[in-house]
C-alpha cells in the first residue's frame, strides 16, 4: 500500500472516530422509545386528568358563586365598605365577570396542517409563544381584561406548551384560539399595522398560512378566572413602605 493511501486511511479513521465519539455523546431526547400500548396508556391517563380538571374547575366556579350569593344575603350584617373592598379586589384579580366594548382576535393553524401529526417547529402552527406575544401586546396596549377560549388571563396566568399542546392556566386548549379583550380597537389596529409589531407571527401569517383575524365587538364578556392563587409563601410586610 502506498504512503498516500496509508495517510488517507489514517485520516479517515481519525475522522470516523471523532464522528462516532460525537455521535454517542450527543444527548437528544428520543421522539419515542415506548411500545404503542404504553403510549396509548399515557394518552388515556392524560385524558383522565384533563376530564378531572374540568370537573374540579367547574366545582370551584360553583363554590365561588355560592360564596358570593351568601355574602349578598348577609350584606346587611357585613359592613358595606368591607364588601366593596372585597369586590374591588376580586375584580382586579379576574374573579368577577367583566364586560365592555372591545374586540376578538382569532388565531389558527395553517389549514394544511394536522396539529397531531406534524414535526416540532412547524412554522404553520400557532405556538404558546405566539399567544404570549399577543397577550403581552394587548397588555402594553392597556386593555382592561383578556380571555382566551374561555380562560381568563391574569398576571399570573401561564401560557405554556408541551410539545404541540397549548395550555393556558394549566387547561388544554385547541385551535382556533379566540382572544377576547376589552379595550380600544382602533388604536390596536394602528399598532398591528406596524411591521415591527409581532414580527415573527406576521411573517408566518404571510408565508406559512397561519390565520389571524380581528373583529371589533360592541360587547365582550370575559369569564371569571377559574384557576388558583397561592399565597402560602407570601407575608404582609408590617411596614408597607418597603
Amino acid at each position, binding site marked *: 500500500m502506498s504512503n498516500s493511501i496509508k495517510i488517507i486511511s489514517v485520516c479517515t479513521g481519525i475522522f470516523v472516530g471523532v464522528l462516532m465519539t460525537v455521535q454517542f455523546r450527543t444527548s437528544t431526547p428520543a421522539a419515542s422509545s415506548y411500545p404503542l400500548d404504553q403510549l396509548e396508556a399515557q394518552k388515556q391517563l392524560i385524558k383522565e386528568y384533563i376530564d378531572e380538571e374540568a370537573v*374540579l374547575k367547574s366545582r370551584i366556579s360553583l363554590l365561588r358563586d355560592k360564596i358570593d350569593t351568601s*355574602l349578598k344575603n348577609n350584606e346587611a350584617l357585613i359592613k358595606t365598605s*368591607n364588601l366593596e373592598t372585597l369586590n374591588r379586589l376580586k375584580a382586579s384579580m379576574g374573579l368577577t365577570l367583566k364586560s365592555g366594548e372591545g374586540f376578538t382576535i382569532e388565531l389558527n393553524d395553517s389549514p394544511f396542517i394536522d396539529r397531531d401529526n406534524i414535526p*416540532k417547529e412547524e412554522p404553520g402552527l400557532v405556538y404558546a409563544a405566539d399567544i404570549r406575544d399577543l397577550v403581552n401586546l394587548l397588555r*402594553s396596549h392597556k386593555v382592561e381584561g383578556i380571555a382566551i377560549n374561555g380562560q381568563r388571563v391574569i398576571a399570573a396566568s401561564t401560557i405554556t406548551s408541551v410539545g404541540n399542546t397549548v395550555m393556558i392556566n394549566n387547561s388544554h386548549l385547541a385551535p382556533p384560539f379566540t382572544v377576547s379583550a376589552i379595550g380600544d380597537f382602533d388604536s390596536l389596529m394602528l399598532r398591528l399595522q406596524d411591521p415591527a409589531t409581532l414580527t415573527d407571527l406576521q411573517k408566518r401569517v404571510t408565508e406559512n398560512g397561519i390565520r389571524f383575524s380581528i373583529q371589533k365587538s360592541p360587547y365582550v364578556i370575559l369569564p371569571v378566572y377559574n384557576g388558583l392563587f397561592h399565597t402560602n409563601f407570601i*407575608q404582609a410586610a408590617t411596614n408597607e413602605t418597603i
Partner: protein
Amino acid sequence: MKLFKQNTEYTTPQIIILAATGLLLGFLLITQSRYFTSYVTTLGRDSGENVFRKIQMLKTSNNDLAEEISKLELQLQEVSNQALALETINKDIQKNKLITGDIAIYGPGIEIEIGTQLSDIWFTDIVNELFAAGVQAVSINSLRLTDTTIGFDKLPNGQIMLNNVILTPPYKFAVIGEKTNIKQVIETSGGIIERLKSTYQDFNYKITEKDRIEMSKI
C-alpha cells in the same frame, strides 16, 4: 491528481475497505447532522414534548384544585354563618391584597440577575416560566408585576419599557416562592436558562437564594 493515477495499484480488499469506510462515514455524517438539527430545534422558545412532564403538571394542578375546593367549601360554611362571615371576609380581603399589590409583601425566594441585554420576548417568556414554576410574586428591577401592570414594550431604539420605566441590564428578577424548586425548574435541561444560553452567546446570569425577598406595594 497523482492519487488517481495510482488507482491501478489498489487490491480488491483495499477497495472494499475504502467503500465500507465511505459508507460508514456518510451514514455517520447524516445521522449526526439530523441529531444536531433536532437538538437545536428543541431549544426554541417553548419546551419540547415530554409526556411525563405533561402528566406531572396535570397531576399537581389537579391536586391543587382539589385543595382549593376544600378551602372554598370551608369558606362557604363560614360565610353562611353570620357570626363568622365578617371575619372570613376580612381574611379574604387580606389574602387578596397580597396578590393585587395593595400592600407590601415579603417571603423566601430567589433573585435572578441577568447581565445580558434581552429582547422583549424573553421577558414575557421568563415571567411565564417563573409562574409556571410556581412563584407567587414577581418583580423586575423593583417593579412588581400585578394585574395592573402594563406589558413589556420595545422602544424603537431596542430598549424595553415596563410601566413607563425603561429596563436596563442588569435585570433583577425577584421572586417569592419555594426557592429550591424554582431554581431547579428554571435551570433544568431545556428550561428557560438553557434556552437563553442557546440564544445569547454572551448570556450571563446569577441566581441567589434568599430567605427574605421584599416587594413594595403598588
